[in-house]
């Protein structure tokens, strides 16, 4: 365990030290001795992004979506912030004008998919435990899931990512827009605790505002924290329960879909 806690720079300088020591011992030996082999360390340049393979698949997905004229929305949040309820209500409001399909990621269970299927939209469930209990959806998983969707009859594909504010932000899946859902039952300072997520998203939904009368929640502080990490990001204060604030959110969504269609 103690090895894990070492800083890399310390480990490195230890290693370099011992290398020098061993050379100092070996080099003075006369040629033809019992051990005249020398260890030479050779550095081979690699310079590659670790997520190259994912990024390449995301590019393929993006091309497929563009060719099919589909707008893809990646929805992310922590567990329990109300992604599924927000989507249920969103689907009811936009169907059938905007033909939609949903890919739902969960580590296990099909509960969310079952709820969303009631809207009538085709729903594909991705359980990541099949892939090793992953904490995010990768471009490769989307590529597989999309095979189960009839793309020609779809305008909007919504990907409900796995509830997690850390990992999904790192993985491009080929989407057009990213939305993060934050609820007023979480801390106001979530955006500064998970800056990558809030940097990477194009809009934020501040959900469960129907609960505000019962909470000591400072909504302005939450919005300020969002803008501290991502200045100018659109924030929609909504209640997925009462549908308060949905008009502005749906207006943003439909405008984004239309803009892509006209491009």
């Amino acid at each position, binding site marked *: 365990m103690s090895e*894990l*806690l070492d800083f*890399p720079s310390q*480990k*490195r300088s230890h*290693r370099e030290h011992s290398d020098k020591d061993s050379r100092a011992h070996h080099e003075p030996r006369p040629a033809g001795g019992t051990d*005249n*082999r*020398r*260890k*030479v*360390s*050779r*550095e*081979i*340049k*690699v*310079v*590659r*992004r*670790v*997520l*190259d*393979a994912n990024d390449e698949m995301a590019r393929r997905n993006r091309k497929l979506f563009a060719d099919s004229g589909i707008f893809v929305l990646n929805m992310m949040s922590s567990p329990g912030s109300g992604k599924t309820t927000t989507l249920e209500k969103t689907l009811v409001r936009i169907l059938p004008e905007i033909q939609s399909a949903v890919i739902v990621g969960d580590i296990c269970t099909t509960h969310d998919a079952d709820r969303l299927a009631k809207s009538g939209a085709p729903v594909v469930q991705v359980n990541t435990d099949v892939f*090793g209990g*992953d*904490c*995010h959806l*990768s471009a490769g998983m989307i590529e597989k899931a999309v095979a189960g969707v009839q793309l020609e009859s779809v305008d909007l594909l919504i990907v409900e990512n796995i509830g*997690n504010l*850390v*990992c999904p*932000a*790192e993985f491009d899946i080929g989407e057009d827009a990213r939305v993060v859902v934050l609820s007023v039952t979480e801390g106001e300072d979530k*955006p*500064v605790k998970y*800056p*990558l997520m809030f*940097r990477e998203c194009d809009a934020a939904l501040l959900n469960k505002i129907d609960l505000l009368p019962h909470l000591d929640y400072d909504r302005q502080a939450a919005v300020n924290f969002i*803008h*501290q*990490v*991502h*200045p*100018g990001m659109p924030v929609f204060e909504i209640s997925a329960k009462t549908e308060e604030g949905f008009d502005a959110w749906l207006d943003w969504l439909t405008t984004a879909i239309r803009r892509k269609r006209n491009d």
Partner: protein
Amino acid sequence: MHEMGIAMQIAEIAAASIPEELQHSRVERVNLKVGKLSAVVTDSLRFCFEVVTRDTPLEGAELAVEEIPVSARCKDCRLEWTIEEPVFSCSRCNSGAVELLSGRELDIESIEIVEEDN
């Protein structure tokens, strides 16, 4: 939380980078650049790397991580600075039009291989 998957990707790229003529040599170190804004815990990553490289040519290789600070440039006043805390507006003119120059890295820079000369 996704460090295992990332460690597997690192091992795969590193193994594929070993030149043909050095296939039987020992990889001593894998040099990685990790931006401070990337969602990776380096201690977990090292632990996972050690696990996934067992019984492979990378077994025992050190994963040397260089942390890259988050740096930004203001699109309005062109100021460049290092972001030390999660405030992403210009420290001079307060503009929110900020371009990140570094901090998102998750790159394998190089591998170091020990050759034994006769």
